[in-house]
C-alpha cells in the first residue's frame, strides 16, 4: 500500500478537516503553525476565522438561523466590522433617540435596559409617583439590521412599584402597588405580562402570584421597599429590600410559567440582603450580611428541591480601622432560554451571534467599599476615608470555586478570601460616579467613565493613607476586556488552597484596555451638540451599544432622550 501523507490531500479536504468542530481552537492554532500551507489555509478559510473570532469575542454562533439564510461569510464580515468598531471604540452610528412619552405623562424613576430595549416607567403628571404605564423603545442595531428606533407604550391598568423585562420571552414582570388595609400585612402581587400588549402572558399558568410580607402589621410607606427583580429562564426572583433599618429583607423565587413558589428567604434585622443574581437555573448568588453585623458573605444558594447554601465566600479578615459595608452585586444577566416551547414570540429578531452563556463568560461585578477610620469605644465607626474597588469574577468561580471539591449538602463550604480573591480581577473605582441602577459589565466587557490614564496608574492599597480629594478630571469612555476563560484547573491545584495573603494589593489585570477620549457627540434637531459626557448615566447594553441615559434637552423638562452609540 502506498503511503498518503496529509500533504497530498487537496485543500478542500484539509479545510474540511480543520473546519469540523472536532478540533478545538488550540489544535487549530497548533495546526496553523505546522507549515505555511496549513497557515494559509487557517488564515484564509472564512469558517475557521469566524470560529476564532467568535471565541475571541466570547460570542457563539446562532445555529437557529440556517447558513443558507445568512451565510457564515456574511456573519464573519459583520462580526469583523463590529469588532473593529468596538475595539477602537469608534461607533458606527451615534444618534439621539427621543423616548416617545404620551401627552399627559411624565417619566418616572424606574427603567430597564435589556438587549437594546429601553423600557421606562411613566405616570400621569398630576398623579402620584406610582408608575402606571411603560414606554418601550427598541434601539437601532447593526447586528439585527434595525435602522430606526421603534417605540410603543403599554398601559398597565394598575399602579406598580417596579418592573423587569425579558425580551427573549416577551415577558414583563411587574410588582403591583396595592393599597394596604390595616391591620393586614402588606401584599405585593407580582404579575406576568407580555411586553408587546401588556396582557397576561400566554405561557404563565397563573396571571399573578402574591407575596405577603410575614409578620408585619405596620403601614408600609411608599418607597419603603426597593425591589430587585431578576428573570432567568423559567424563574423569577424578587428581592424586597427595605430602605430603612430595622425591617426584614425578603427574597422570593417563583417559576413564572407554572406559578409554583420555589423559595423564600427571610432575613430579619440586623441581617440584610443587599442584592442577588442568578448564577444559572439552579443557583443564585446572594450578597447578604449575617451576624455579627459587619460580616457579610457572598452565598451561593442551590434552589433545587431543598434549597441550601452550597458555598460561602468570605470577605477579607478586617484589620483594625477597616470596615467593609455590604457590597453591591451586579451581574451580566444569566439569560437562558425557557424550558420547552413558548406561545409568546421573542420581541426582537434572532441575532446572528450572541453572548456566550457559559459560566466562564459571564462576569459578575462586585462593588466593595473599603472604609477606613477609627472605632470609637468599640462600637461606632468614624469614617476617615473611602476607597471603592470593583471586583470581577466569572460565574464559574462561584459555581465551582475549587474543582474537585465536592460541596457538602449538610453545611455550607466556606471559601476564604485568600483563596478566591486572587482569582478575580480588580479595578479601582473610587472616583467613578456610582449609579447603582446601571450595569456596566456585559459578557466579558466592562465599560466605564474614567479619567484618561496614560501609562501605569499608581496603585495604592486601601490600607494606605486616605486619598486626597482631587478635581473631577475630564472623562473618557474606557472599555476593559477580560482575558478569555481560563482552561480547566490542573488537578495539582485541587483543594490545596492558596497561601493566605497578608496584604491586599489590588492588581487589575485585563487583556485589553481601550480608552476613547472622543466624547461622542450628536447633533440634535435644534443644532445643539449633545455629547455622552452630558448624560447622567452610561450603560453598556448587549455587546453592541453604549447608551447615555437621560441627556435632557435644555428648556424642555419633560422630554426624554437617549444618546446611543451603536457599534
Amino acid at each position, binding site marked *: 500500500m502506498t503511503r498518503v501523507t*496529509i500533504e497530498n490531500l487537496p485543500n478542500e479536504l484539509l479545510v*474540511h478537516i480543520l473546519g469540523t468542530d*472536532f478540533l*478545538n481552537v488550540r*489544535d487549530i492554532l*497548533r495546526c496553523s503553525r*505546522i*507549515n*505555511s500551507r496549513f497557515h494559509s489555509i487557517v488564515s484564509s478559510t472564512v469558517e475557521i476565522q469566524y470560529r476564532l473570532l467568535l471565541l475571541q469575542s466570547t460570542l457563539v454562533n446562532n445555529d437557529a438561523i440556517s447558513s443558507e439564510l445568512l451565510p457564515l461569510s456574511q456573519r464573519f464580515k459583520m462580526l469583523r466590522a463590529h469588532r473593529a468598531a468596538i475595539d477602537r471604540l469608534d461607533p458606527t452610528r451615534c444618534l439621539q433617540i427621543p423616548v416617545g412619552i404620551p401627552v399627559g405623562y411624565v417619566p418616572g424613576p424606574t427603567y430597564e435596559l435589556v438587549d437594546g430595549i429601553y423600557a421606562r416607567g411613566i405616570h400621569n403628571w398630576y398623579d402620584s409617583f406610582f408608575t402606571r404605564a411603560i414606554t418601550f423603545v427598541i434601539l437601532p442595531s447593526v447586528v439585527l439590521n434595525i435602522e430606526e428606533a421603534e417605540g410603543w407604550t403599554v398601559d398597565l391598568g394598575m399602579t406598580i412599584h417596579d418592573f423587569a423585562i425579558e425580551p427573549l420571552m416577551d415577558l414583563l414582570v411587574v410588582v403591583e402597588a396595592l393599597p394596604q388595609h390595616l391591620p393586614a400585612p402588606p401584599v405585593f402581587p407580582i404579575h406576568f405580562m407580555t411586553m408587546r400588549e401588556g396582557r397576561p402572558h400566554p405561557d404563565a399558568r397563573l396571571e399573578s402570584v402574591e407575596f405577603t410580607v410575614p409578620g408585619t402589621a405596620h403601614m408600609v410607606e411608599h418607597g419603603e421597599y426597593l425591589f430587585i427583580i431578576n428573570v432567568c429562564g423559567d424563574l423569577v426572583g424578587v428581592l424586597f429590600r427595605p430602605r430603612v433599618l430595622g425591617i426584614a429583607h425578603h427574597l422570593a423565587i417563583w417559576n413564572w410559567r407554572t406559578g409554583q413558589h420555589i423559595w423564600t428567604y427571610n432575613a430579619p434585622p440586623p441581617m440584610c440582603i443587599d442584592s442577588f443574581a442568578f448564577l444559572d437555573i439552579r443557583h443564585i448568588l446572594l450578597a447578604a450580611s449575617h451576624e455579627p453585623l459587619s460580616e457579610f458573605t457572598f452565598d451561593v444558594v442551590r434552589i433545587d428541591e431543598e434549597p441550601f447554601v452550597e458555598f460561602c465566600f468570605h470577605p477579607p479578615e478586617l484589620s483594625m480601622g477597616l470596615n467593609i459595608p455590604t457590597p453591591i452585586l451586579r451581574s451580566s444577566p444569566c439569560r437562558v432560554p425557557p424550558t420547552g416551547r413558548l406561545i409568546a414570540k421573542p420581541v426582537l429578531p434572532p441575532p446572528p451571534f450572541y453572548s456566550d452563556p457559559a459560566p466562564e463568560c459571564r462576569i459578575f461585578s462586585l462593588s466593595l467599599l473599603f472604609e477606613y477610620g477609627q472605632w470609637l469605644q468599640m462600637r461606632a465607626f468614624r469614617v476617615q476615608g473611602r476607597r471603592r474597588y470593583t471586583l470581577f469574577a466569572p460565574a464559574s468561580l462561584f459555581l465551582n470555586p475549587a474543582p474537585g471539591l465536592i460541596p457538602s449538602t449538610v453545611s455550607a463550604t466556606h471559601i476564604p478570601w485568600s483563596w478566591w480573591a486572587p482569582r478575580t480581577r480588580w479595578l479601582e473605582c473610587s472616583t467613578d460616579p456610582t449609579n447603582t441602577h446601571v450595569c456596566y459589565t456585559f459578557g466579558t466587557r466592562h465599560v466605564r467613565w474614567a479619567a484618561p490614564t496614560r501609562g501605569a496608574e499608581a496603585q495604592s492599597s486601601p490600607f494606605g493613607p486616605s486619598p486626597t480629594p482631587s478635581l473631577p478630571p475630564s472623562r473618557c469612555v474606557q472599555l476593559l476586556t477580560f482575558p478569555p476563560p481560563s482552561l480547566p484547573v490542573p488537578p495539582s491545584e485541587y483543594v490545596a488552597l492558596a497561601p493566605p495573603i497578608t496584604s491586599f494589593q489590588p492588581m487589575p489585570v485585563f*487583556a485589553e484596555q481601550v480608552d476613547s477620549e472622543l466624547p461622542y457627540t450628536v447633533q440634535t434637531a435644534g443644532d445643539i451638540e449633545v455629547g455622552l459626557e452630558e448624560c447622567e448615566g452610561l450603560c453598556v447594553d448587549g455587546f453592541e451599544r453604549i447608551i447615555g441615559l437621560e441627556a435632557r434637552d435644555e428648556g424642555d423638562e419633560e422630554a426624554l432622550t437617549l444618546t446611543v452609540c451603536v457599534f
Partner: protein
Amino acid sequence: MSITLISKEGAQFLVSKPVADRIGVVRDCAYGADFWLGYAVATDDSMGITLANVTSSILSKILVWCEHYKDMEPLVDGDSNMEFPEWDMAYIGHDMNQILFVLEAADYLHIPGLLLLACKGIADVLDGRNPRGICDLLGIVMDFSHRQEVDMDKENGYWRWFLHPT
C-alpha cells in the same frame, strides 16, 4: 438486486442495494440515471461500476462501514460535543495513514457520514500534540523561518491566553 463495484486493481465487489445506497457516487450512477434517462443504467449485474481511485483494501474497509450503516442513519453533521458510537471509533482506529486513505476515498465516493468520521479520527490523533509533534507524526517539514514564527506569535498575541494560560 445487487451491484458490482470494481476497484482500482480490477477486483469485483458484489454489494446489495442498501449497502450501495450509502455510497453517493454509486447511488447517483445507478439510480440517478433512472431519473434522467427513464431507465437504470447499472442495475444490471453484468455492468460494474468502476471506482478508479479506490484500492481494493480500502474499498473493502469502506464496505464494512456501509454494511454496518445499511439500516441506520449515520451522523452527518457533528459538533464538538457529539459522541460517535463506539463501533465507529473502533472502526476508524488511530492509524493516521489508514484514516487518510479512508478520508480520501470517502470524499471521492461522496459518503458524508464516513467523511465526518474520518475527520473525527484525525482530530483525535492531532488532539493535544504540539506543531513539532504533528510534523513528526505526519512526516511534514516545517518551513517557517524563525522570523516568521516570531511574527506569528505577535499576530496571535491574544491567543497566548489560550495556548499558555497564566
